[in-house]
């Protein structure tokens, strides 16, 4: 009962955060909402005993992404003047598509059998398992992702350096 309440509480945080992100007129409030949403997701991971994932979610998204977003937003001039973060365009076309998408999701949710593994995994540390599977079964995707990250890093360095030569 309490556990279910906890779940709904976390889900509420996540959804509310997402709504604030989507509908807030103020970019900083949006970023703040995003953070709440991320924290909610981290809570949901924790709720599902995925402790390592929850912590990584916090480090990467709250400590990294949200801070970077806030950081970037603060460099934007006249944040208060900007009344809407994104313009609402093509409302006519978007509405039926969104409605259809929501319908599909709701329809699918009723047909799929969710298997609960919560009892089995309860209170076992996941760090070791994640590490093991990353370096055994999933070593190829792991390496591919690292190559991708390397490319991103090099690209970032390239962009940053190019700019500097222009400046001086």
């Amino acid at each position, binding site marked *: 009962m309490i556990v279910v309440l906890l779940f709904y509480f976390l889900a509420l945080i996540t959804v509310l955060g997402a709504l604030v992100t989507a509908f807030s007129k103020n970019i900083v409030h949006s970023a703040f909402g995003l953070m709440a949403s991320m924290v909610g997701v981290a809570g949901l991971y924790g709720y599902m005993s995925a402790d390592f994932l929850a912590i990584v979610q916090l480090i990467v998204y709250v400590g990294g992404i949200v801070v970077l977003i806030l950081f970037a937003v603060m*460099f934007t*001039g006249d944040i208060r003047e900007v009344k809407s973060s994104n313009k609402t365009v093509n409302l006519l076309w978007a509405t039926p598509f969104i409605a259809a998408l929501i319908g599909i999701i709701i329809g699918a949710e009723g047909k799929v059998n969710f298997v609960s593994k919560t009892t089995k995994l309860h209170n076992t540390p996941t760090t070791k398992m994640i590490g093991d599977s990353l370096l055994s079964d999933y070593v190829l995707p792991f390496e591919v992702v690292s190559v991708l990250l390397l490319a991103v890093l090099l690209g970032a360095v390239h*962009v940053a350096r*190019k*700019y500097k030569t*222009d*400046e001086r």
Partner: protein
Amino acid sequence: MSNITEKEVFFDEMTLNMGPHHPSTHGVLRFVLKTDGEILKTAIPDVGFLHRSIEKIAESLPYPQFFPYTDRVDYLAAMNANHAYAVAVEKLLGIEVPERAEYIRVLVAEMNRIASHMVGVGSLASDLGAFTPFLFNLRDREYLYDYLEEMCGARLTYNYLSIGGVHRDLKQETADKILKFVEQGIKNLDEFNRLIAYNKIFLRRLAGVAVVNKKTCIEYGIVGPNLRAAGLKYDVRKDQPYSIYDKLDFDIPVGEAYAASDGGVIGDAYDRFMVRIKEMEQSYKIIKQVLKEIPEGEIQAKVPRKLKPPVGDIYVPTESARGEMGYYIFSDGTDKPWRLKIRTGSFSAMSAFEEISNGYFIADLVSAIGSFDIVAPEVDR
């Protein structure tokens, strides 16, 4: 990306208001900063918050009564301001000051110069975040103020000098105390240096910052330790000696790129800092000489009750702690000056800021203000 010019990227600059009650503007100075992020485009000084119309007041006061106001021009080196005014009026009147009084004047002026430099270098350190060295200096300054208090009864604004002499004689026990303190003071200065002056962070913060070369200094009329840090060996005490400075033996320290190992050049903030430190050593040396050679005798020349200088105008420069302090006095033959103008070191240093500050960080502006040792009432008067 390459076709984006710098101007398009930095299309907007931030206008920051620094002061008048910003912690590192030493009194009430105001800067309007145009910055690009943390990097300064310009820092436009806005002065006048401490304008107390001292020059206007002087026009309605007899010559001797103006002494207390000179204290307020530079509260950190009030004796030097006193001295400057006394020298100017005496030269205008043609009064000969007794030798003992001259010695006492030089003694108090040098003591106050040390006290002023202590605050100058200490507050520079505290602007950079090191608070302890500042308090070390304040501790030593208290001793100096104690002795000055013994001599003239006040600690900050003395009104000690009179036209033609000084108000009270120097007692032998005070002289002994001062001599004893000088020994400890030199040691304490060494302690201060070891604490902060050779600190790597401190060196790196000041080396190459707010460089003012000799040419800029002369153009803007920057004087005193700031000028000497730029490499020009000019000191009013040596070049246009007044009082008994021509009898004394002391050196004039100049900037030699003291922080050269960390990228410093002549005339940077570290040189200004170091020149002040070395000047303190020289002042200690002068105090020792003065106390050794001080003659017995009168301390007050015979001056008429009502001072009526001849018609004319005079400019007398002296060396205050913040550089050349000169009084330009117009006399119309009455006992009040027709017009009196005080030339101060901080004023000219301040006027150069708009040019100096370009291209540095906000944090560097703070160290620049500290290294020029600007005192707000000197700028505004």
